[in-house]
């Protein structure tokens, strides 16, 4: 839907809208992209950034730097990433990626 809108605007712009109007719309686009990126960096299970310790590790209040070292990120073959802690609890009951429902297999782990 957004794409369609953009095309219309661009077409209109070529015809009769002043260039500074178009600049405003481009800016709006950039903001939308930014929030999409943030969504990807957040563990969809506990809603904490994957680079920070997961909610469980935070709640267990491990010493800050140990906690952060233990709590690694895991990427699936589907390219979705979660905290290893969060994902290992979930796969015990259902071995599928919670975001795309594909069979879960680990592609890599780390930070």
């Amino acid at each position, binding site marked *: 839907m957004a794409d369609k809108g953009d095309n219309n605007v661009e077409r209109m712009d070529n015809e009769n809208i002043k260039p500074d109007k178009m600049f405003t719309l481009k800016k709006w686009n950039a903001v939308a992209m930014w929030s999409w990126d943030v969504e990807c960096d957040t563990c969809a*299970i506990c809603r904490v950034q994957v680079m920070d310790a997961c*909610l469980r590790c935070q709640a267990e209040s491990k010493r800050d730097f140990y906690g952060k070292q233990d709590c690694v990120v895991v990427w699936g073959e589907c390219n979705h990433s979660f905290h290893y802690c969060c994902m290992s609890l979930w796969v015990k009951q259902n071995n599928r990626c919670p975001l795309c429902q594909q069979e879960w297999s680990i592609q890599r782990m780390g930070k």
Partner: protein
Amino acid sequence: MSTPARRRLMRDFKRLQEDPPTGVSGAPTDNNIMIWNAVIFGPHDTPFEDGTFKLTIEFTEEYPNKPPTVRFVSHMFHPNVYADGGICLDILQNRWSPTYDVSAILTSIQSLLSDPNPNSPANSMAAQLYKENRREYEKRVKACVEQSFID
């Protein structure tokens, strides 16, 4: 001491306040973040329009790995709502994903009001009327809508 489930629920509440979906609202009860009260407003262009339907949501410490128990407190006449208010909805049972939050749960229930699934009925009378006598179905639903103002 705050558990992971409680922390997750605080995040859910924050998201619900910062980015409230249209037609639903919810908040934890005063003294227990594991029990929430919620309201779903009947979607426009459905017989549920104008209704304010109250629900309770009960979470366990296994949330978000296990779904909460969601129940209508308001009387409902809907193919997928049991007489006790329990809801027959796949994402609250076998299709649950730990990526759902309160906001997603409430909007899914809201869309269930617009699109009942009469093939897995929790209320067989409602399912039958929905399929065979839409006018009578809408009449019974409208009675619930009016009752929802009083509850």
